[in-house]
């Protein structure tokens, strides 16, 4: 508990500063109405109608996010394993080799089916 309390100090300072800056932003500058300013910026080209509702985004990102979860969990297991490695010894090494190889099966599958390619 005592270890986490000081973070609160920094959190209050940081959040206070950020919220303050963001909320005074509309009041410090001038206001000159212009209809073009109300549109999304697209280099002067006609704004794309309905960028998200109708238009969809490549599902590619979902594979990235899923693989991110997979490897994140692997990392989460690797950290305590690394910390306690000297105590776990050879047994720990064997089980982690097995674990990594098993996860690499999924990784190799995704790679082979071009799940990691972007174009």
């Amino acid at each position, binding site marked *: 508990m005592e*270890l986490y309390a000081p973070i609160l100090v920094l959190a209050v300072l940081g959040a206070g500063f950020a919220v303050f800056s963001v909320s005074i932003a509309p009041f410090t500058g001038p206001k000159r109405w212009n209809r073009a300013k109300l549109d*999304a910026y697209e280099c002067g080209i006609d704004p794309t109608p309905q960028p998200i509702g109708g238009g969809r985004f490549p599902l590619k990102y979902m594979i990235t996010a899923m693989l991110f979860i997979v490897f994140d969990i692997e990392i989460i297991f690797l950290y305590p394993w690394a910390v306690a490695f*000297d105590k776990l010894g050879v047994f720990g090494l064997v089980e982690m080799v097995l674990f990594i190889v098993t996860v690499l099966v999924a990784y190799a599958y995704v790679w082979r089916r071009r799940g990691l390619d972007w174009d």
Partner: protein
Amino acid sequence: MSLLTTASVLASPAAPGSPGPGLADFGHDPVWISIIKGLVIFVFLLLGVLFGVWLERKLISRMQHRYGPNRAGKFGLLQTVADGLKMGLKEDLMPRKVDKVIFFLAPVIISVPAILAYSVIPMGPVVSMFGHKTPLQLTDMPVAVLFILAMSSIGVYGIVLAGWASKSPYAILGGLRSSAQVVSYEIAMGLSFVAVFLYAGTLSTSEIVAKQADGGTATLFGLDIPLPSWYAILLIPSFLIYVMTMFGEVNRVPFDLPEGEGELVAGYHTEYSSSLKFAMFQLAEYVNVFVVSGVAVTLFLGGWRAPWPISLWDGANVGWLPLLWFFAKIVLIFCFFVWVRASLPRVRYDQLMAFGWKVLIPLNLAWILLVATFRALRVEQSTPVFILMAIVVIGALAVFFRFDTVQQRRREARAEQIEEEFEQLREEPTAGGFPVPPLDLPHYHGANRKEVPSA
């Protein structure tokens, strides 16, 4: 820093050879000491951003034979202050379609975690602050490095939400792209820490610094030669991989894809134009640079400890002096960031993702297993360990060679294709239907290379 002058500059009670504070030294500060430390870190980060922007512009100008900012203040030092003021006085644009709540929240979400991550970066040993003994680090915890990773994973929300709230295609694409990039490089970054934890046996930042205090000595011809203790030297592959992921993690050149202005204008903060909200994004970017530099210093470059020739002097790692080593290291890494920015072009997005997923991650895993087997060998030397080590080495080499041969084959195939095309064009210059002038026309530097006088 006023603290330096007001607080009594006393040596820490620890003996010169002691490795420095550990986890047990934290959690005893009275509230006002915590407030002072938090305030100093906060001010340090804000001033760091101001100074960092100036230093970056100045350095990069010098590298490009320009002067850089030199009007506002001495050496242009006040340039960033002026820019900040200007941002405050700019009109705050808010497009009609944006989601107002999240549009406001995104700059806050991106900047606060960046600042918070600095609370576990150790900056010095135990010192006496107004008669109270306390380590120069806001706090430490058994999972400090995980805390830094957690903060950076919250920071990604700022990017995604800023992109989404803007409801413009550039912003959304920029947000998705850069969040996918940041999470991809976060994996490689997280993996590059594992070897450090294998050696240090702890996740607490102050203890990792303490572990790098002394690398032991080797006796050669009767001389005691101190061995390197920094993990950057002991674990060079981890360090190199970390340095590469650093750039991907904070969206800096050569991986500054979200700001690939040729394709995405300004990426996820396109709609934040130029007001104080945009200033928050800028602040978060620089603070993130300081955070990854701080992590590099702490995990790989010996933390606040003095570099080698200086560390032979007993007084180098005592009292307030180590703050100087820490800041010097941070500034050097920041200069490295600028140097890279001045030297390298931006990579393409598919190259960036392929590099992160197909190169850094498998290399990293192979390296971790290698380090672990060596480590196991130190714990016990038995036949199963040797067999296991052989398997791991062969496996790692197999991964590497497969990777290498595939690359080699691709490169050869591409060269062959180009050669073929040239062959075809040499025989028949109009092949392919392009309106190409024949290469042996007299006014070209073609067959007989004769200059034709103009007019």
